[in-house]
């Protein structure tokens, strides 16, 4: 079946440092979504990427979809304590079910 990897599993950064998480799929994707889950909360949709090589920005967050549509990245510039949480990539598989990557847990040290 389809395999999804996310690295790193955990990341601890000093406030103000940058952060990047990478998502890799074993198969070519039609689209990829990113979600953020705050501690004690539920996942919340951040963004969707559809086109090969697509780059989207949301304030300090930059999302990229690989040229081969098999990988994606989320980069946060100058992290803040409000960025704490787990970031998941999500993708559709057969029968249109949506599976999630294992997530990257971000801690920000003030």
């Amino acid at each position: 079946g389809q395999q999804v990897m996310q690295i790193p599993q955990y990341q601890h950064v000093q406030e103000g440092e940058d952060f990047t998480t990478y998502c890799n799929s074993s198969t070519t994707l039609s689209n990829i979504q990113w979600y953020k889950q705050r501690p004690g909360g539920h996942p919340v949709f951040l963004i969707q990427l559809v086109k090969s090589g697509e780059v989207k920005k949301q304030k300090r967050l930059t999302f990229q979809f690989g040229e081969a549509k098999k990988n994606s990245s989320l980069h946060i510039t100058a992290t803040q304590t409000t960025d704490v949480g787990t970031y998941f990539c999500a993708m559709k598989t057969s029968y249109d079910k949506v599976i999630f990557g294992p997530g990257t847990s971000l801690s920000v040290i003030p």
Partner: protein
Amino acid sequence: GAGVSQSPSNKVTEKGKDVELRCDPISGHTALYWYRQSLGQGLEFLIYFQGNSAPDKSGLPSDRFSAERTGGSVSTLTIQRTQQEDSAVYLCASSFDSLYSPLHFGNGTRLTVT
């Protein structure tokens, strides 16, 4: 408008008892998903509905787990003869369609099996 509603928010049950978890999706959302999340872990896919039908039930961990959706709206996830390893947060999500729409999650049901 109202978001995805899940009930109960917390459920403590004894090993061997049956439990029923409910999910009320956003009105008009045709796709509905169930996931399980153990403490500090990722989201484990359980089952997905498009309308009332479930094209993929492959994520259900065992035959003790079943789910149904009626009227293209409310869904229930039933766990029979609960085991301690069933303890987790069960998350429900809905989306407008199954193609490119984002998933909207409920707050989850925290199940504890003693």
